[in-house]
């Protein structure tokens, strides 16, 4: 446990001391929240469009911010792998499980912090624009987003292990774009129907966003648990896959 703690602490400090992580993980999503709220204010009420209303936007933007945690996870691992730092640690008694836990734990903590800040900001915006959001709903949205956090941190571990520091961010950008689009963060996926909605339904992003939105609205009907279960299922699969990939890659590095 000492090894994991020491390594996790190092990874946590490396990320929080990188100014870019604040710009991307917090600054950018919060700016998007403000911009989308302004867009919502400009949409006439008779259009009946609610996707950009703060009570809908809160869960979506929290998800959007999490995709950048994935980016920084992958970047951090890819950077370590390209330099001599991991070589040094490979020569210590650390095992592959210590490395994996040492990467996942701090990123998980950062993901929770990012979601909490994002939802607090959403609550402040809701007070300003006069739309009511139940604080309990926001608290439960943090819990509802836990599988999404595991999913995205695992994607980060996966890409950071397999690709170098130039390729990994590029591939993560694809997931960020796909995830925010097909997750229905910035458009009303449910109103589209057809093939697009089918694609959204097959992937985990839409379910992650939907679970967060339903938790914000304190809507715990049957669908909520289905969305949560689908996201959790994907998270488990990607987590196991990324662990297997990391272990194999470490074994190959030491060949």
């Amino acid at each position, binding site marked *: 446990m000492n090894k994991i703690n020491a*390594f996790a602490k190092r990874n946590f400090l490396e990320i929080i001391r990188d100014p870019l992580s604040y710009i991307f993980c917090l600054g950018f999503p919060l700016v998007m929240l403000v911009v989308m709220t302004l867009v919502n204010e400009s949409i006439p009420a008779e259009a009946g469009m609610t996707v950009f209303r703060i009570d809908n936007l809160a869960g979506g933007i929290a998800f959007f911010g999490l995709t950048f945690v994935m980016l920084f996870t992958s970047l951090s691992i890819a950077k370590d792998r390209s330099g001599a730092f991991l070589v040094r640690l490979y020569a210590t008694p650390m095992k592959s499980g210590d490395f994996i836990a040492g990467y996942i734990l701090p990123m998980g903590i950062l993901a929770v912090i990012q979601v909490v800040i994002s939802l607090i900001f959403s609550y402040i915006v809701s007070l300003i624009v006069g739309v009511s959001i139940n604080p309990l709903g926001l608290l439960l949205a943090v819990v509802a987003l836990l599988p999404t956090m595991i999913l995205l941190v695992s994607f980060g571990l996966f890409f950071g292990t397999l690709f170098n520091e130039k390729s990994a961010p590029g591939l993560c950008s694809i997931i960020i774009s796909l995830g925010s689009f097909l997750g229905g963060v910035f458009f009303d996926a449910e109103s589209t129907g057809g093939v697009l909605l089918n694609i959204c339904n097959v992937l985990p992003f839409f379910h992650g966003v939907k679970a967060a939105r339903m938790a914000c609205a304190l809507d715990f009907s049957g669908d909520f648990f289905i969305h949560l279960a689908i996201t959790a299922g994907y998270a488990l699969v990607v987590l196991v896959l990324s662990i297997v990939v990391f272990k194999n890659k470490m074994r190959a590095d030491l060949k």
Partner: protein
Amino acid sequence: MNAIETRKLTKRYKTKTAVSELDLTVNEGELFALLGVNGAGKTTTVRMLSCLSEPTSGECFVCGKSCIKEPQAVKEIIDISPQDTAVADNLTVFENLRLICGIYGYSKEKTTAKIEEMITLFNMDEVRNSRSKTLSGGWKRKLSIAMALISEPKVLFLDEPTLGLDVLARRDLWSVVEELKGKITIVLTTHHMEEAEHLADRIAIMLEGQIAALGTLAELEELSGKQGLEESFVAIAEKYGKKAAR
């Protein structure tokens, strides 16, 4: 017991043999230099001895423990300062040292004592709270070696420790390495003749993955019939080249 022993140690990559049937013994407390040009197989040898690369064939032992069968036990008693500076950029000097103490499971008291010991040994007090990305190459290299030494290894591998350093930083680092002589076993790889001549108890000249000559400076001079390590190295390399061509 020998600190290091290799028997017919070989590493082959697809088309190249990096290390070929290496037989080597390093005594306890010795400062042993692996000297050779780039691509001679020095780093590959160190990687196999520090369990960072599996040998293709042959055996290697560190303090009697097999690098192949007991890598975890070997990792407990060795440490390495790799060729490239291996420090965490956004951590301070103090935090980098604390990281290694944490990995080796030191108590709070031992961590504090060991960090202070390293900071004193390497004269790093003025940079103890500086983030490593802001340090000069010389300071980074010192930190990298301090991080290897703080784990109290029985065998320390220094892979090209002065690569890219200016003459003053190099001399500074030499004085630190000299202080460690006799206390632990050190295997140093270098292609600087002066460095091997200045620091090593014994020198192995590596050429094309094999040991072309091994001995003290005086023994190498006698073997080559030349004065000084550089002249001896050239003479041995030429002789070895002719022998290999035959």
